[in-house]
């Protein structure tokens, strides 16, 4: 096989400029058939832009693209698909109201004279799902499936199109370990079939496990492409951030004071009950557990987003009755939700407007917002949290995930709460921003705030939190004291497998 025929994709000198921003500069990126090629980099490094160029969503400002050795020009996603390039997005991009089979063959359903051949389609979809080892009924309505099943349907859809190049963007972000292992089996099979697989992930351990080659992007430039053989995660991180990530979870020891937020035997009647814990000033209490254990439900109920049917909540020793978020804010509780895009930010507004949203009353006089105070407040937080770009007037949805998260935290700090609940604050943000968010949390507790942090990542929980509450099936364990904290202990409590 010649070198040219071996080369599935060859992107040369790709640049992409948006008004005011150079998203990609002179990137070279080549992938061979029959290999898994990982692309890593911090959020905002240019991975998504590069992939959007590859799937025809963006036209590159300059550069050439060769697919299978022939130079191509792609103007829209359909062009890329015609060339055998398929994307599997991180966010599920399927049609909830159609069946699984219809989704697998979306845009190219089999038929004659536009009459759908349903039997044939269902049979073929079942065969593809079967080949991928996914036990999913092709006749089921897609919206009734779990997120991880939908993710598998997304992969089946790409695979059914018999692509030459398949791009997977964070495919494991909603998969369990078991499902991830199954996905890797599928990927290896596809690789052995000669498909070129581009694998984008933040999870470096997975990259090392599945990829043959890895390309590191940083700030819109290609830093290096090399075989994964002989590279360590530490080396990859260095290439990604361009600096040493020193202390992993920098927690400055804060003085622990009085109990600030105390919940006693709370329950919502369905998803959790008899949950008790307290968190003291200067303390970070971790709240963890498996998916569906009820962590987010507890947080939402405390913040007044859903109703408690039993138990009490007290703040600073006083019992409070909270039925709405505004009462929670008044009582001194703030909540940074898990679903940043849906609940955390107001996308069309600027950073400044987002930050001052909960405290507009304080910033206004006779109903008029004091512009100066508003600007000064936003500028303070932008600087304190090093939100990038440092421009309070920038629309918040144009920021990277990590910077959006920092702005959301800033928003609640402006309200000066005494207790802050963070729900998966570092989910989906990159390595550098993660460290910065941990830093910010450290500063907050140093200033005497009480923090409850919900996280699924054990290393984060162990590294950041002072005490940890583990939830399982709507029940919470007694808080684990520092001496009891270990990965094994938490896993045992989370899964209900008591240790000997």
């Amino acid at each position, binding site marked *: 096989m010649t070198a040219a025929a071996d080369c599935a994709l060859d992107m040369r000198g790709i640049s992409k400029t948006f008004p005011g921003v150079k998203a990609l500069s002179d990137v070279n990126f080549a992938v061979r058939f029959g290999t898994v090629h990982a692309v890593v980099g911090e959020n905002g490094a240019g991975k998504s832009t590069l992939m959007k160029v590859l799937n025809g969503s963006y036209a590159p400002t300059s550069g050439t693209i060769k697919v299978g050795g022939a130079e191509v020009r792609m103007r829209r*996603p359909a062009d890329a698909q015609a060339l055998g390039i398929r994307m599997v997005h991180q966010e599920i*991009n399927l*049609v909830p109201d159609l069946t699984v089979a219809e989704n697998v063959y979306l*845009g190219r359903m089999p038929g004659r004279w536009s009459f759908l051949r349903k039997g044939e389609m269902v049979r073929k979809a079942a065969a593809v799902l079967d080949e991928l080892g996914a036990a999913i009924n092709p006749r089921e309505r897609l919206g009734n499936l779990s997120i991880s099943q939908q993710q598998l349907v997304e992969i089946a859809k790409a695979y059914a199109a018999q692509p030459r190049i398949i791009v997977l963007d964070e495919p494991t972000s909603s998969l369990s370990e078991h499902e991830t292992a199954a996905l890797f089996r599928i990927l290896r099979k596809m690789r052995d079939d000669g498909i070129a697989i581009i694998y984008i992930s933040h*999870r470096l351990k997975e990259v090392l496990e599945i990829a043959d080659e890895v390309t590191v992007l940083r700030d819109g430039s290609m830093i290096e492409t090399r075989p994964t053989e002989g590279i360590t995660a530490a080396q*990859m991180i260095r290439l990604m951030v361009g600096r040493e990530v020193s202390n992993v979870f920098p927690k400055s020891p804060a003085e622990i004071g009085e109990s600030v937020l105390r919940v006693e035997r709370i329950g919502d009647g369905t998803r959790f009950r008899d949950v008790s814990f307290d968190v003291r000033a200067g303390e970070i209490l971790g709240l963890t557990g498996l*998916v569906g254990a009820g962590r987010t439900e507890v947080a939402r109920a405390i913040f007044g987003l859903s109703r408690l049917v039993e138990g009490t909540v007290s703040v600073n020793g006083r019992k409070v009755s909270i039925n709405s978020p505004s009462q929670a804010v008044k009582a001194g509780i703030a909540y940074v939700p898990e679903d940043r895009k849906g609940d955390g930010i107001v996308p069309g507004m600027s950073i400044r407007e987002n930050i001052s949203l909960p405290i507009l009353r304080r910033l206004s006089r006779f109903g008029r917002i004091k512009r100066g105070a508003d600007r000064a407040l936003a500028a303070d937080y932008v600087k304190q949290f090093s939100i990038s770009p440092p421009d309070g007037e920038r629309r918040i949805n144009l920021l990277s995930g990590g910077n959006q998260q920092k702005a959301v935290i800033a928003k609640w700090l402006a309200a000066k709460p005494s207790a802050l609940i963070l729900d998966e604050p570092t989910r989906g943000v990159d390595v550098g921003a993660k460290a910065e968010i941990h830093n910010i949390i450290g500063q907050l507790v140093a200033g005497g705030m009480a923090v409850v942090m919900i996280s699924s*990542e054990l*290393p984060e929980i162990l590294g950041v939190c002072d005490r940890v509450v583990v939830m399982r099936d709507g029940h919470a364990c007694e808080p684990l004291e520092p001496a009891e904290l270990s990965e094994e202990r938490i896993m045992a409590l*989370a899964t209900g497998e008591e240790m000997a």
Partner: protein
Amino acid sequence: MRFLALASRHRVVIILGLTLIISALVVPGYFSASTLGLGLDRAATIGLIAIGLTVLLIAGQIDLSGGAVFALAGIVSVILQREIGILPAAIVGILAGMLAGAINGALVVGLKVNSLVLTLATMLIFRSLAHWITNSQPVSGADIMLSLALAKIYLDVFTIRSALFIILIVLLHVWLTRTIPGRNVFAVGSNPAAAKESGIASDRIVFLGFVFAGTLAGLAGVLQSLVTNTGSPVFGSELTVAVIAAVVVGGTRLGGGRGSALGTLGGVLTIGSLTIAMEFQSVPAYVQQVVSGLILILLVVLDRAVTTKGRAPGTRPALVRDNPITQGGNT
């Protein structure tokens, strides 16, 4: 819970059944063939427009201008009768509806604007055009005999208009469930981004959806003007609300992606039988509208109660053991 979900799925049947039972109790002789035929004929006008609107709502769009197009198409067909003959005039009237739909579609797709606002604007324009053309006076047609033929009841139940409606509903059902373009309409309404990414020509589907809706509103308007031998600029001014009510009663989701022809049939029959029952009891027209409105509110509330409670649990990642940072910690 399961009962509620089941009730929600078959709610059209339940609502229609309740309406018929109550009507039969209140109105003597309600189930006589002539009453049913009358109700069906009345429902057919709503129904023809509802067919177009069903497709549009499934595709995630809405058309408020149906009632105005209905009036305009009728006027066009009546005015032209003396000059070019009844049948050609009728065809031109339907084409006028088609053109109005094409204008709606081209503007929504071309300007990428919200169809609710846009068709609100074109509704005003089409309605005003109808007044302008006629100097706000009703116009009458050339031949009363045709009206009588159209109003005649065949097989004890059907008029030409209601038969046409039933045939089109069946065709719509086949089209929505059995054809690829039909399924693609659901995709476009349910998740436009996914549809586009999969190479479905969303813009063309939306445009043709508006053309289809306009054509059917035009057809309904022409039939109405032929039956009454009159074209009036005030025809159909309350029709839009009744049509939306009928489609939504039939289980079509306002947000797009869900709906069915048979549901719309049920919704149209419900609104039709309700109207007839109330007319037989001499309930004034404005009270009838109040009842339609209340039913709509009831349905929306019922719908929400069922869908939010039955929603799948939140989605979060499984407990992740490994993390790039700790791995990078030079262990």
